[in-house]
């Protein structure tokens, strides 16, 4: 088991390294931030001088090796635009994204789980069809559209909630709703499918034969067993959440790392972009790993194949 684990961690780290390399070279291909940093009237010599000062006139592989050397010493460098340590910038912004992701997960679980259970348990009734339609709708909504509509409705027309930015805990509501809608659909479907699977199992029929009502059977046994695949899907969804956060943070001006990433790409703040991508891919990879391990724990056949 530990060998398997070690192997998977190794693969995960390799994947992250691959990501870093790709991002590094792709960013360098798009130019450098020198032109963005100089004032309007700078001359060609002044631009060249600044470029040299910043080290962007070195060949790209040389820059890459220098970067790797710094990484090994856990030196993530300094942002060119903000003249502050990259790690510090990230540390300030990550909590906002974490808050947003938590809010979205809360929405997704809070709505998705009961919906999924209902859809499975009452699958022959009209309520299941209605819920199915709603779940499908949630999956089909473009996040930026639902975001803008939410702002328009609750922020501008009704003035119930803040329209954007960070203005106290209430400002987390709208962005979480927008971000959580899509994940909610996944959870609902996954829960429905897992519960359906369980409901079909022999032990449930046996329990029913013993006289246990369907709802007790569901509550006592089915939910507990269905929870396992659902939890593993949650781990995978976190990765998707981070991706969706980029658009939501832009629409709602939420100062998380998604917004930071977009801004840094647009200002060619390489070191920040690389750090964000590294962080996100590590989280992604860690979540995938957790999900895989959970699967392997339940299903011995998978363990053998790897």
């Amino acid at each position, binding site marked *: 088991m530990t060998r398997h684990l070690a192997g998977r961690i190794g693969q995960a780290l390799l994947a992250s390294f691959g990501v870093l390399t790709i991002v590094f070279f792709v960013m360098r291909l*798009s*130019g*450098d*931030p020198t*032109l*963005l*940093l*100089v*004032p*309007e*009237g*700078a*001359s*060609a010599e*002044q*631009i060249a*001088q*600044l470029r040299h*000062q*910043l080290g962007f006139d070195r060949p790209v592989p040389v820059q890459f090796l220098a970067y790797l050397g710094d990484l090994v010493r856990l030196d993530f460098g*300094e942002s060119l*635009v*903000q*003249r*502050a*340590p990259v790690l*510090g*910038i990230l*540390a*300030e*912004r*990550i*909590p*906002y994204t974490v*808050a947003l992701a938590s809010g979205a997960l809360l929405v997704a679980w809070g709505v998705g789980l009961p919906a999924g259970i209902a859809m499975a348990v009452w699958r022959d009734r009209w309520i299941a069809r209605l819920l199915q339609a709603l779940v499908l709708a949630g999956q089909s909504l473009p996040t930026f559209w639902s975001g803008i509509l939410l702002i328009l409705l609750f*922020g*501008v027309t009704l*003035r119930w909630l*803040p*329209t*954007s*930015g*960070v*203005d*106290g*805990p209430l400002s987390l509501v709208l962005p979480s709703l927008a971000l959580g809608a899509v994940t909610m659909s996944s959870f609902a479907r996954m829960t429905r499918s897992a519960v359906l699977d369980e409901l079909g199992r022999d032990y449930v029929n046996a329990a029913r034969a013993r006289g246990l009502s369907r709802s007790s059977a569901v509550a006592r046994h089915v939910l507990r067993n269905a929870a396992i695949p659902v939890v593993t899907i949650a781990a995978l969804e976190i990765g998707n959440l981070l991706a969706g956060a980029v658009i939501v943070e832009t629409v709602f*001006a939420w*100062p998380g790392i998604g*917004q*930071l990433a977009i801004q840094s790409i*647009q*200002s*060619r703040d390489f070191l920040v972009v690389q750090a964000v991508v590294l962080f996100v891919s590590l989280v992604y990879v860690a979540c995938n790993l957790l999900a895989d391990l959970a699967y392997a724990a339940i299903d011995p056949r998978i363990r053998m194949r790897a």
Partner: protein
Amino acid sequence: MRRLLAAVVAFVLASPVLAQNRDQLTIDLPADVATMDPQIQWDTDSATVYRNLFDNLLTRDKTGKIIPQVATSWRFENDTTVVFDLRTDILFHDGSKLTPEDVVFSVKRITNPAFRSPQLSQFDQIIGAEVTGPAQVTLKTKSPYPVLLAQLVKLSIIPKAYVEKVGDVAFNQAVIGSGPYKLASWQRGVQTNLVANETYWRGKPAFSRVTFRAVPDSATRIADLKTGRADITRGLSPDDAVNLRSEKGLDVRDVATERVAYMFINTLHGPTTDKRVRQAIAMAVDRDTLITALQQGYAKPVDVVLAPTNFGYTSEVKGWPYDPDKARKLIKEAGAEGAVIPFLTSPVYDRRLNEAVQQMLADVGLKVSITVVDQPTYLKRRLGTPEEASSLSQGRWSCGCLDADGVIFPLFRSGSVWSKFANPAFDAEVDAARATLDEGARRAHYKKAFEIMREEVPALGLFQDEAIFLVRKDIDWTPTPDEAFFVFDMKTKS
């Protein structure tokens, strides 16, 4: 770890600032401060905040004239040497005195190539800075530099001892200046809080607390003002301004700035190398409709590529009249009917202006094809070779120095990265204008330069940009053309 915790606590406790409190001021800006260190980033949103924390060597009054601040007076010993007498009663926020050593340190730090200041090119004509008396410094320039004083308006004085003690990175996090406000806290990406410097040498500031919030969406900024969450915001679009004119309790205040909107035309490559095509373009653009329809009148037309607030502006050089028929004739003459004109731009520039011009040029037979790339790519191409730069671009230029030298020299003098224009007569005029301190002579040179530009059309001057602010009615403040944002100059009307 502590920073993480602080951010979480700050987030949880962040509450809407009670803007109704007349002692506090809340300002919504489109973006957060990039650096608090005044010698690094120079963008509007950063400068808006940090200029309140520092004093500058010189400053401008409401009419734009350069007046003393840290320096009480100055005299030119010769064309390349200026002596400044300094105030002796200024204290930094940590109590230490502002001395000539601090002034010299500020100059040397920003002109030090190893410091990599993005503002270097605005100060690199200064080759010497020395303490020459208990309250005196002397600056030397490479050659006669008529824009020196204008550039020094942008030099903030920083405390040498403190900066050397804590280092550049820590200084950026927790700046100390001598200005009317002190930095209380800076939550990156969210907001900056300032508190009044009670012992400020010009007097106690009217507002005891000031908060600058980063709110990228203009609709949200306006909503904040309507609900009283904020007191002032900038960057209103002309459409918004028209809508808000009748809003109770709020004032739309606009000011004609030194920024000029123009259309760059490539004279060195593509269909626009033919002068007739360029002149046709000048006659095909209906500038007045652009100003009425797109700018809702919040713009003043200019015939030259310079705003009237700048030194060197002349109204004696007339532009080309709007005459689409003549334009079509010229294009036929030049054999350029149906020519494809590449137009390069980025999201930074108003896309409606681009598309409107595209339509106007289509009406006279030129097919404009617009390519939008992001700002870094745009700069790379626009500042590259004439082949990369495309035939047309929109431009919005301000040098922050209120002088033609900062505008048409970098834009059109051959050899400059922005210039896709090579005219020796033009070069001679702008070179001469920069080499003398005699104002009359400079004006004459610039007039000649603009006459050459009128004939050759390396660019089309469109209008003088306006900055539009939304301000709570009871705040007594008028915006100035240099877009300075000094909270010290604001107070509530009694």
